[in-house]
């Protein structure tokens, strides 16, 4: 009797685990989208500049990279979840308990390489490495990067990628808010 109960509970456990893991995956996926990330107004200039950018859907096909595509590590699932936890805790804490209008958003852009991950870029641009002389220009420009001769991250060269004219959007947004608060 005891043995039967054990077997059934394991089977049921696996079943519940599978079902709920689908939900968790969906949840993780959803919480990495621009819709979720911009639920608070802090991210307004970021998402506005993102929607104006090729990476935010402003392209012929309407293809988009999600916020999480660039801003979470895609090295492996563990790293992905680890960076996601870190970012969520930080952003949640700052939004609730800190004065986000006091943050120097322009200065933060200079550290883009610390919160943008090459492994994210490479999930989409996976063919860049294999590019051949059909796209000379792109291949030549990235040859040293893939050969390991330079230790720069993607955004250290492509320093506006993903957010078109973010500097202008940030200035507009926070100037408006600060003016209204006065």
């Amino acid at each position: 009797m005891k043995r039967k109960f054990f077997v059934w509970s394991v089977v049921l456990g696996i079943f519940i685990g599978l079902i709920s893991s689908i939900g968790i995956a969906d949840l993780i996926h959803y919480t990495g989208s621009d819709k979720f990330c911009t639920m608070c107004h802090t991210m307004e200039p970021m998402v506005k500049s993102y929607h104006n950018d090729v990476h935010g859907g402003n392209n012929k096909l309407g293809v988009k990279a999600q916020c999480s595509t660039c801003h979470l590590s895609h090295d492996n699932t563990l790293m992905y979840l680890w960076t996601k936890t870190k970012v969520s805790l930080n952003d949640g804490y700052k939004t609730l308990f800190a004065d986000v209008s006091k943050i120097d958003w322009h200065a933060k852009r200079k550290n883009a390489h610390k919160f943008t991950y090459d492994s994210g870029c490479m999930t989409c641009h996976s063919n860049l490495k294999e590019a051949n002389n059909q796209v000379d220009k792109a291949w030549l420009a990235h040859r040293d990067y893939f050969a390991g001769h330079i230790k720069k991250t993607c955004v250290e060269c492509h320093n506006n990628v993903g957010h078109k004219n973010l500097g202008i959007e940030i200035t507009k947004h926070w100037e408006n808010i600060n003016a209204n608060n006065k």
Partner: protein
Amino acid sequence: MLKKVIALIACLFSFAFAESISDANLVKNLKVDRNLTPLAKSCVECHAKETPGIVADWKNSRHAHVGVSCTDCHSHPADSPMAMKQAHPKDSNNHVSALVSPKTCEKCHANEVKEFNESGHARGGIQVYAKKGMLDLMYHFEGRGHPDLQISPDSTGCMQCHGSVIKMDADNRPTKETWPNYGIGNLYPDGGIGGCKACHSGHKFAVSEARKPAACASCHLGPDHPDIEIYNNSMHGHIFNSEGSTWNFDSAPDTWAVPDYRAPTCATCHMSGVGELQTTHNVSRRLKWNLWAPHSNLRTGGNDTAVSEYQKTGKLNVGTPLAGHVDGPDAARKEMMMVCRECHSSLHSENFFAMADKHVMLYNDYHKDAKAMLDDLKSKKLLKEDPWADEFQRIYYHLWHHEGRRMRQGAMMNGPDYAHWHGVFELKDDIRKLKDIYDKRLKSGTIE
């Protein structure tokens, strides 16, 4: 009457016809389709008429071959500190700048820019603005503190080679006080430091050009560092000047070696990947001594720090005056001798450098005495406040900055006329003049 009118009209038509034919021959329309974007194509096609010289340079460049076009270097996001306020072409949503900083070049040439940043060239501009003495010289002594004209010794003089801190006007166009120039160490509004076009003139950027002595000669000349004159005085320069026009300056980096050339140019010794050596854009790397300073010390400073310091703190700074090889002066000399080994026996180059080193040390011996007298007079308050009105300080300056540099650089690059007649021979006179003034001031206790 009618006949005359018809004849006149016929004349006019034939002139007009001839004019239109000759126009058709003169104006050449460029049509390009090299996988360029429509915008890039429109730049080339319009600028072929507006600025044909620039497009002509580009179309003869390697950049044009691989499809790197105007927009790749000159287009900037609207929020870039260098982007012109108005879109160009009009209503295009495209923002451009006449400025192209090493931050753009390094997108494709990252190694070259990294090595450059580690060299003394990188601090060429910002060190000038970080030194009070240099600012005094430019604005106060040379510019006479003139309210409007004091900037000219800077913008028309020093910074043309050293590089300036480029500032933008209200429309985000570079200001006349700070641009145009071909300075090696420009500081661009986007934070990029350097001047690739100082050696690789835009818009062709030919490697063959930078490998010729002329690339260096526009700055490394004249009374205080006559490097091109020294080169011309040397056997290397003699061979280059007599047959350099027949050499091959076009090989790929790291592969340029004898018999592409029969004697080295500036680039060969200081930069090229000769034999086992790798190409470097760090021109300080193969140098053992600091030959420009008042006293020649061994280059023990490793990589220059001016750029990394600026990027960290945002401050103008003097960098690393003793920048050289990251493994020290002996490693630097060893690399330089590897260049020599392409053509010379090791005995030949060892003997040469042993004697050149002695000439540097002999200079130091002169300078040691001159500096001791200067320090003594200073401590006894026997120096004028305006160094340029003080005979002792003027001679001291020329001793290290003119004669002394010629003596040392002449020795290291085998220019005997500069090592001797323009160098040590004049130092011998200088030290006697300094001694006379020194004795007189000590005896009388006053400045003459």
